[in-house]
């Protein structure tokens, strides 16, 4: 087991930031840690990386207890904290050599040159960190986390605040690196988990509400399907309900409707046929992406 967490709890004053969570991650897994802001994702990660002391419970990384052997744990982990803090007045090389020094790596210039190549920092390598764009800063953040070839990589919102191209690049990097390592990354974007992770742990208000393989969880989300349709001419609400499979109809603007159906039915085709039969025209129809809150409502309702 790469990461083992048992009954982990962190209490700030009255507030339980993380409340008695238990999970374990096998080596080689890429796990998405999903939850809204303030759910306790960062707090959990900070406890795993020995930044915070748990109020109670045990966290182990590669078999080392975070409270008993923090130095060993820190050597096994590569960590990218939230907001990617960096020394802005340092040069990239200088910074990475400094990090390599702290990890007591042998042949530091070689290790630094390698990671600069891997993270695609070469074109910018002589710049100050403060002069870099957000995407490149994120690469520097990843570089410092992966520099010492850690067995476990913990990334706190690695793609937040990046543009879509940068997000893709960073995702590719993480997937590449995570091929033979354990990666735990937090996010509040569902697609990110779908794109990268084998497994998802969803946390809300300090408690785990779901812990499953990504495919399994996706099937659960897809159990209800929401379709947004815009017709050219007005439609009767009761008439819409006659479409087979439709459970609920809500009006969503002029001639715009929100239809929800139970799982397994492809509404798009049926709605199209309905429009043709009633002599109407469809201007737009799209399946709504499941937003995190809806997934949460869904999950908490199921429990």
């Amino acid at each position, binding site marked *: 087991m790469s990461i083992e967490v048992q009954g982990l709890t962190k209490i700030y004053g009255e507030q339980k930031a993380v409340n008695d969570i238990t999970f374990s991650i096998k080596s080689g897994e890429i796990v998405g840690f999903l939850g809204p802001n303030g759910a306790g994702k960062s707090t959990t990660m900070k406890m795993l990386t020995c*930044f915070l002391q748990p109020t109670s419970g045990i966290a182990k990384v590669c078999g080392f207890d975070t409270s008993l052997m923090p130095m060993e744990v820190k050597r096994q*982990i590569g960590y990218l904290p939230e*907001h990617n*803090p960096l020394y802005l007045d*340092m040069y990239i090389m200088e910074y990475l050599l*400094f990090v390599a*020094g*702290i990890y007591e790596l042998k042949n530091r210039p070689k290790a630094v040159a390698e990671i600069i190549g891997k993270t695609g920092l070469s074109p910018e390598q002589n710049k100050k960190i403060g002069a870099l764009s957000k995407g490149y800063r994120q690469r520097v953040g990843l570089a410092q986390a992966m520099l010492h070839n850690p067995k476990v990589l913990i990334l706190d919102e690695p793609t937040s605040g990046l543009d879509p191209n940068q997000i893709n690049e960073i995702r590719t990097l993480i997937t590449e690196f995570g091929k033979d390592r354990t990666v735990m990354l937090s996010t509040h974007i569902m697609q990110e988990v779908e794109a990268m992770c084998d497994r998802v742990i969803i946390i809300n208000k300090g408690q785990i509400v779901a812990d499953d393989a990504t495919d399994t969880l996706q099937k659960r989300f897809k159990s209800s399907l929401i379709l947004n349709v815009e017709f050219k001419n007005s439609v009767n609400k009761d008439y819409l309900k006659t479409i087979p499979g439709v459970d609920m109809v809500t009006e969503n603007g002029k001639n715009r409707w929100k239809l929800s159906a139970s799982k397994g039915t492809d509404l798009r085709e049926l709605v199209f046929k309905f429009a043709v039969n009633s002599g109407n025209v469809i201007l737009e129809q799209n399946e709504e992406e499941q937003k995190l809150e809806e997934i949460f409502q869904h999950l908490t309702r199921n429990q």
Partner: protein
Amino acid sequence: MIPLFIKEIRSFLSSLIAIIVIVVFLLAIGLFMWVFPDSNTLDYGYSNMDILFNMAPWIFIFLISAITMRSFSEEKRMGTFESLVTKPISDLQIVLAKYLAGLVLVLFSLIPTLIYYYTVYQLGAPLGNIDIGATWGSYIGLLLLGSCYVSIGLFSSSITENQIVAFILSMFLCFFCFSAFEQLSKLSLFSPIDYLLEWVGINYHYQSISRGVLDTRDVVYFLSFTALFLGFTFKMSRKGK
């Protein structure tokens, strides 16, 4: 620990803090020692460096507070502290590396004043008529005093994320520890414990070492003072974690 120490020194240099501190210190001391008519050594007529050793503790209050104010507050505000703490380096090593970097800067601001020593040495009549013991004692005293100030500055920086607060607090604490105990001990209110109160202050021990007598008690005082504040820094840097 060594990489962090080097990094701290480099950040002093790259942010020009080091240069400014050293230049301002030398400029201020130089003015007092050689230019200002009320205090310059040439008119004073005695071949000693008392001006330097009397003024330096006051100038250091400002300068050392300025060099240490960023050490923890900036790291905490920027979040780099989290990144640093989660690397294989212990909290104690972090405090020590930052302390040593500050102390080295103090040392480097003192080294150029050896020119003044050489000058006074040459100007003495007869040549070399300067109290060598007292001068070297004072240098050691000044370095130990700087060490106390650095530890106070680090402590102030560790309790706040605001550099200005750290700066002002550090100046006040340095001033208080250096001089206020001695001043307060002169109040009749404290007359039963006046000696003890004076003994607690830095100035008492600084003056004692300045005479050129390296009393172990004074050295132990300076070292424990530094250790005490570094200990506070160590505790505060991880508060609430």
